[in-house]
């Protein structure tokens, strides 16, 4: 899935980010420029801070009492840590998909309609129906669930649940989609479906995906960042990272010597 066009806008610009959990220094001076309409993968051994860094981008770390973030992150040039920015509004713009599928104990329809209802994205039921259908189609789930929209979302299979969560995130019309190991709880077939979906989502969003599977990073992403012990060691074209890394630590990780 190579991308040939070289001129891409910078969507997210993170500079000198440090994150502390109480005394623990989890992210150390990380700077990264993430492009629009691109899939960017974060790889690295478990506990190196990939999820922590991802959660800085939609300020989910604000919901953890002991977490403290310093540095600057701008989306489309706007500082998201500016005091005037409402993190709640920000999270509507920056969707997130979690490691374990977490559909709400509501119907499939209500799961997808949740965000649009909260943010008032529809004027009437017909518009809401339309949003739900469109989102489920973008989540590659519509055909499978269109006859049982009012059954509980928790009754779907794991892979379907995760696509439901993607559809739910897409329904609020975000500009950036963050995915934290979205396939780690799925079987290989469901994983393949979600990966295919991620490639399609790239047409509309800037996608950032955390994965511990290097094969997955190689399959779905155009850019890859390698994290190690809270540092971002290397960030480059995915092909380059996997064939010709600059840093010896990246080299040993992708050849299986650390992690």
């Amino acid at each position, binding site marked *: 899935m190579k991308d040939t066009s070289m001129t891409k806008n910078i969507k997210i610009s993170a500079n000198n980010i440090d994150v502390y959990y109480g005394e623990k220094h989890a992210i150390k001076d990380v700077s990264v420029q993430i492009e629009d309409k691109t899939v960017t993968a974060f790889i690295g051994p478990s506990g190196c801070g990939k999820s922590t860094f991802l959660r800085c981008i939609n300020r*989910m770390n604000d919901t953890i*009492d002991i977490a403290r973030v310093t540095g600057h992150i701008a989306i489309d040039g706007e500082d998201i840590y500016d005091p005037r920015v409402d993190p709640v509004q920000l999270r509507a713009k920056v969707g997130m998909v979690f490691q*374990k599928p977490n559909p709400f104990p509501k119907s499939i329809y209500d799961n997808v309609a949740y965000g649009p209802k*909260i943010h008032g994205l529809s004027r009437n039921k017909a518009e809401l129906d339309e949003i739900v259908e469109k989102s489920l189609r973008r989540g590659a789930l519509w055909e499978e669930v269109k006859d049982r929209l009012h059954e509980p979302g928790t009754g779907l299979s794991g892979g379907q649940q995760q696509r439901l969560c993607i559809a739910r995130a897409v329904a609020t019309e975000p500009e950036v989609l963050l995915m934290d190991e979205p396939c780690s709880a799925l079987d290989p077939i469901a994983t393949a479906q979600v990966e295919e979906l991620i490639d399609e989502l790239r047409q509309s969003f800037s996608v950032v995906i955390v994965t511990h599977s290097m094969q997955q990073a190689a399959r779905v992403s155009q850019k890859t960042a390698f994290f190690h012990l809270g540092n971002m060691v290397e960030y480059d074209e995915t092909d380059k990272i996997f064939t010709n890394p600059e840093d010896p630590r990246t080299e040993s990780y992708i050849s299986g010597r650390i992690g």
Partner: protein
Amino acid sequence: MSLTLPLLFIAALSVGGFFIARSRAQSAAGGDIRKLASLPRQHGLNTALSTAIPALFAILAWLFAARLLSYRDAAPIWVPLAIMLIATLGFILSIMRVSVTFRARTAAEGWIRSLLIGASVIAILTTVGIVFSMLFESINFFSQYRWQDFFFSTNWAPNFRGNSDLGILPLLWGTLYISVIALIFAVPIGLFAAVYLSEYASRRTRSVFKPLIEILAGIPTIVYGLFALVTVGPFLRDYFAQPTGFGDSASSVMTAGLVMGIMLIPFVSSLSDDIINAVPQSLRDGSLGLGSTHSETIRQVVLPAALPGIVGAILLAASRAIGETMIVVLGAGAAARLDLNPFEAMTTVTVKIVSQLTGDTDFASPETLVAFALGLTLFVITLALNVLALYIVRRYREQYE
């Protein structure tokens, strides 16, 4: 002859048996315990249990048989002798079985199993026994008093010279009225407190407030009753009932309901708190991640997910309210009345059970026996509520496992 002697005998023999079997096992092994199929202390345990358990079961069997046969004197001499014989037999047989190859560990396992089964059987039998004793007395009552009058008469006027009106309806009405008022106070406050504690409070605040609320649960209900009598009752009378012309009684449904509500707050809040905490964090993250606020997340995701459990908690609280007595006596009085006015004195089933059984009573008259019929009715109602609550709570658990 009492059963104290056999009990002491069993205890001594089984403790002694432990040490004897252990040292026999050690000497059988000739100093090298690796030769033994089971460790010396396991032989000891087996002997101790073989001595004690059959003999203890024999004691229970005797007590049970004596009760069934209505045998009220002290046990005849052969009973303690037989019990001691059983213990001695267990002791001797198990000591004789001590050998290098005997698997005492497995044998002890069997005894432990029977001990555990015995404990659960006792728990079940006592419950069954309670129900039956109520049932017998109730049947006795209904043979002297028409059940139609008991269940459908709207008048409660016991008269110890006979010819009483014993209609349960005014009592049930008082019970339900007071319980509903109690729940109307306790449920919102307890639930909001639980939401605050589990969703908003910092860890420090939580560690202070949660025990404080739970202390409320440890106050004896008679103390709540006194509070109702000297503080809440007069207050409600002077500031609400009298100015609005609702009456001038300090004892009232409102007083008892309010104080009972206070009693139930910690009960509702600590159960709800546990249930809200059991809602997976991933659901909250999912909702927050879609850009909803904290309170939207609670209202639209956390509470709906916790709802079945919360309903279960409320039903449990309701069954406590229905069974409460002290607060009602001191707060609502003892007058049976079918009335809508919440500032009027009324009373409940439990209060009347107590008053029918205290004082000069003749255990054959319907005026006394009615207490058992009242108790049985109450038991059936709370049992139904508890079963419903357990059913709902269980369904809720399955959802997340």
